[in-house]
């Protein structure tokens, strides 16, 4: 690695925040393109790599294959420590062998927050006799509210709009329930394979039971397994369902449909009182091990993640800057709610990360067992055992 030093990158946004942040579009930007091609003769893409947007496992592979470098010297040089809480930082940490997640050097940094939140149709809430400004603050109250709404709504109208065709809708939906019953730290420990962690615990089985009840009580639209995630957000925007529980990255889809008749909140906490939810950051950015100019790449990361200009661009795309103390969006109360929900969870060390990160096969294991659970084809106990078996199979390969 070259001598670590701070490099100042100044970039002017010519289009006043209309361009997407992150991804390849910026690389094509004439101004940035020039800055970045100064940085490396191979062009900009060589300098900074981003992981897969929804999957952290490529990071382990990149670390293991030594394709990226640790960012710790830059974190120190620039003072990036304050950007994230420890639980969020753990997303970017891997031991040098790429085997242990959540420990070791920090290999990446990310721009936006991903928080699975509760979106509510305020018009419907009012019609059902609820005050959107005075929503439940405990999970039990929230659960009771769902049951009450089920009673009041016509039978063919869902309480919660749900799209699970791809199989990740259910992972997100369950996150909210799990957060109420299980300590977020133990969920993170399980994902990061801290010895002794288990999915097969009484608390988690209780959460799985509650989830199964949501299905058997008919809170969801009956076609949830056939409906795509984003489609369910769009349908919620069309007024189908009182709630939508999903990723805040779809907040613009919902806003486009419901306009001002929508509010955002985190699922209320269980007995622990911790505001927790399933979520993480957007795909992390890395510095290539092959670059001759890591300092310049680090300067770019500093700019693209924390600069006021970058934050403005993220908000323009209805995305939430991940860093602590990010500016609040001006003149957009809805986006302000989305940002506040992220800061609430991230600040309370309540970000549980995505449970499908627990093993390479976990995504499909969770997706298919959740579908069986909700259809009443599998008991919560059996599901907990099956999921834990997947975890243990992978856990052995880490030893």
């Amino acid at each position, binding site marked *: 690695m070259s001598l670590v030093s701070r490099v100042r990158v100044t970039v002017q946004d010519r289009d006043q925040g209309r361009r997407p942040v992150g991804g390849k579009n910026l690389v094509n930007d004439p101004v940035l393109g020039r800055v970045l091609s100064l940085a490396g003769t191979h062009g900009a893409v060589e300098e900074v790599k981003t992981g897969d947007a929804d999957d952290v496992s490529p990071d382990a592979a990149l670390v293991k294959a030594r394709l990226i470098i640790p960012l710790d010297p830059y974190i120190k040089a620039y003072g990036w420590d304050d950007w994230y809480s420890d639980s969020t930082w753990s997303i970017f940490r891997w031991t040098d062998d790429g085997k242990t997640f959540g420990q070791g050097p920090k290999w990446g940094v990310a721009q936006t927050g991903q928080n699975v939140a509760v979106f509510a149709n305020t018009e419907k809430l009012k019609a059902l006799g609820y005050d959107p400004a005075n929503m439940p603050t405990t999970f039990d109250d929230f659960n009771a509210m769902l049951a009450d709404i089920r009673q009041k709504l016509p039978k063919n109208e869902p309480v919660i709009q749900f799209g699970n065709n791809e199989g990740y809708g259910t992972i997100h939906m369950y996150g909210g329930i799990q957060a109420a019953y299980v300590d977020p730290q133990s969920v993170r420990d399980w994902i990061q394979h801290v010895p002794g962690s288990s999915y097969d615990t009484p608390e988690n089985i209780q959460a799985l039971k509650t989830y199964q009840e949501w299905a058997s009580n008919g809170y969801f639209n009956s076609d949830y397994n056939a409906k795509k995630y984003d489609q369910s957000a769009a349908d919620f925007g069309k007024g189908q369902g009182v709630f939508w529980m999903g990723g805040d990255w779809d907040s613009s889809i919902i806003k486009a449909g419901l306009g001002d008749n929508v509010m955002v909140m985190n699922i209320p906490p269980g007995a622990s009182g911790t505001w927790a939810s399933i979520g993480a950051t957007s795909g992390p950015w890395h510095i290539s091990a092959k670059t001759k100019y890591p300092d310049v790449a680090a300067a770019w990361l500093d700019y693209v993640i924390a600069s006021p200009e970058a934050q403005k661009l993220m908000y323009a795309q209805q995305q939430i800057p991940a860093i602590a103390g990010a500016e609040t969006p001006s003149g957009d109360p809805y986006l302000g709610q989305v940002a506040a929900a992220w800061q609430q969870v991230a600040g309370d060390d309540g970000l549980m990360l995505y449970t499908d990160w627990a093993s*390479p096969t976990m995504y499909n294991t969770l997706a298919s067992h959740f579908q069986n659970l909700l259809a009443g084809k599998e008991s919560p106990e059996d599901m907990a055992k099956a999921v834990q078996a997947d975890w243990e199979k992978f856990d052995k390969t880490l030893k």
Partner: protein
Amino acid sequence: MAVSADAAAPAAAADAEVEKARRATQRAPGEPRNVAWLYILPGLAFYLLFTLAPLAHTVELSLFDWDGLTPGRYIGFANYREAFSDPLVRESFRHSAELIVFYALIPVVLGLLLTALLTRHPVRGFTFYRTALFLPQMLAGVVVAQAWVWIYASDGPLNELLRTIGLGSLARPWLGDFSWALPAIGGIGTWVTYGLCMVLFIAGAQNIPTSLYDAARVDGAGPLREFFAVTLPGLKNEIVVAFVLTTINALRSFDLIYNTNQGGPGTTTYVPSLYMYQNAFVYNRVGYAAAIAVILAATIFALAFLVIYLTGRGEER
């Protein structure tokens, strides 16, 4: 005698040499010249480079534990042992067997039916029907899948139709239903492949001498009798080709399932190619994926040969 024998031996040897030399330069009448290899070479090179070499490489990979990035580790037949005891592999192959009904059997029967309808009498707009019915075959799988996701949606055209004709109780989110998801995907497969069968059969039917039909009619054969006595035997070769092609399609079906259900709900629509893809590109288990691929390829070969053998096409060669 000894002398003459001694003299004869070299002479015979020389004769043999001459004969060998003659054989080397002259060929029996009709025997192809070696230059033919030159003509085959470009195609052969491509085939070797892009089909046989990857196939051999896949077989090699299947003997390794490899994550696709770091160096692999030779593990012999462990991947195969695991695959044969993996319940999801078995379930995937069972689903494939079910899909053969939808991708091969039903399209061949439908194709024969349409051929009988379209060839017996001149049909107005014959070319239009033929083109329209063949069209699904030409669409990209992703497009087809997206269109059918919409058709099968709970408020999509299929369910609306069922409700309109009073069969609303049958309406359901087809792709989200545990029992109906696989048949629903099979239905898409039928829609895609029957056009291919039909075009093959119509082309074949045009090669059946009309004198056979005339003879059958003179003998008083009705449409049904005529179909079984003349058309069906006359299309034997085309039916074999159609079966082989559609069975291969069924076994390696991926795009429709990937773009509709990705194996869900539960594991009800898992097929070998999807599981192979997940292992290779999601789970970073390239060796295991290669083993599944080899098993799948062997199954396809075996089934194709079985179809050809059972229909006796091999004997004609």
